[in-house]
């Protein structure tokens, strides 16, 4: 299984998390769905879909939280027959991130959550202080996306 990263500081924490939790797929992304690191995906289209859907779910649950007077909800867990999904926020000096973890029957939500807490703490420690970001332009977005895809899938 391959692990690829756009942001080098995510690599060591991600490798450790994957090794400890036996997760099958992991995506570290921004709340906008921009992928910073991934493990287990082989096709760019699957990764980008998963990131977009994960970001959308977190945004929707955040909006729902506001409606019921909560500041935010914590992690979301979905249990399936063969796979489970943990979608959890992670605060870093680079800003809020979202981690999508897909795991199979060889591990459990208890183990994944346990090691996720360590992963989130490791990302917090590893993240450099926030860089000054310019305005997001359409042209930059496409270039950024292409750069990310090139880094993640080495092509």
């Amino acid at each position: 299984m391959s692990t690829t990263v756009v942001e080098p500081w995510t690599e060591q924490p991600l490798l450790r998390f994957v090794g400890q939790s036996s997760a099958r797929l992991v995506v570290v992304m921004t709340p906008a769905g921009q992928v910073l690191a991934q493990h287990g995906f082989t096709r760019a289209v699957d990764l980008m879909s998963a990131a977009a859907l994960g970001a959308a779910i977190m945004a929707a649950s955040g909006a729902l939280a506001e409606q019921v007077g909560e500041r935010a909800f914590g992690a979301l867990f979905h249990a399936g027959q063969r796979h489970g999904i943990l979608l959890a926020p992670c605060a870093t000096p680079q800003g809020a991130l979202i981690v999508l973890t897909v795991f199979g029957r060889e591990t459990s939500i208890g183990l994944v959550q346990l090691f996720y807490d360590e992963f989130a703490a490791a990302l917090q420690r590893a993240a450099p202080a926030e860089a000054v970001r310019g305005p997001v332009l359409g042209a930059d977005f496409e270039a950024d996306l292409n750069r990310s895809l090139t880094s993640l899938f080495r092509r």
Partner: protein
Amino acid sequence: MSDALEKALDRISRVRGMRGLMWVSADDGLAVAQLLMEGVRGKAVAALAAALARKVSGAAGAVGAGPVRFVQMEAEGGTLLVARAPSDLLVVALADSRVNIGLARLEMMRAVEAVKV
């Protein structure tokens, strides 16, 4: 049901040397009910005990030993005991080295029987 689970833990806790007791969901590795001494990391014990039970069950299945009912793991700092109950539950005990394993096992199997009904 919750009351019955807590009563069962309370009974096992009377065995000398117990540091933590939990009912754990075998599939999820999450605690359902717990009675822990301060400093015991319940979340970690639940997740790792369920993982241990799953691995041991897999090994027993591979050698044709049938379903695993009780697991005992002794370490330098203490003992982890796991008994499988119906309804996908495990009763997990974390004990120090003074524990009377036989008595602890007896109480844990009684707890398993008590939650069958």
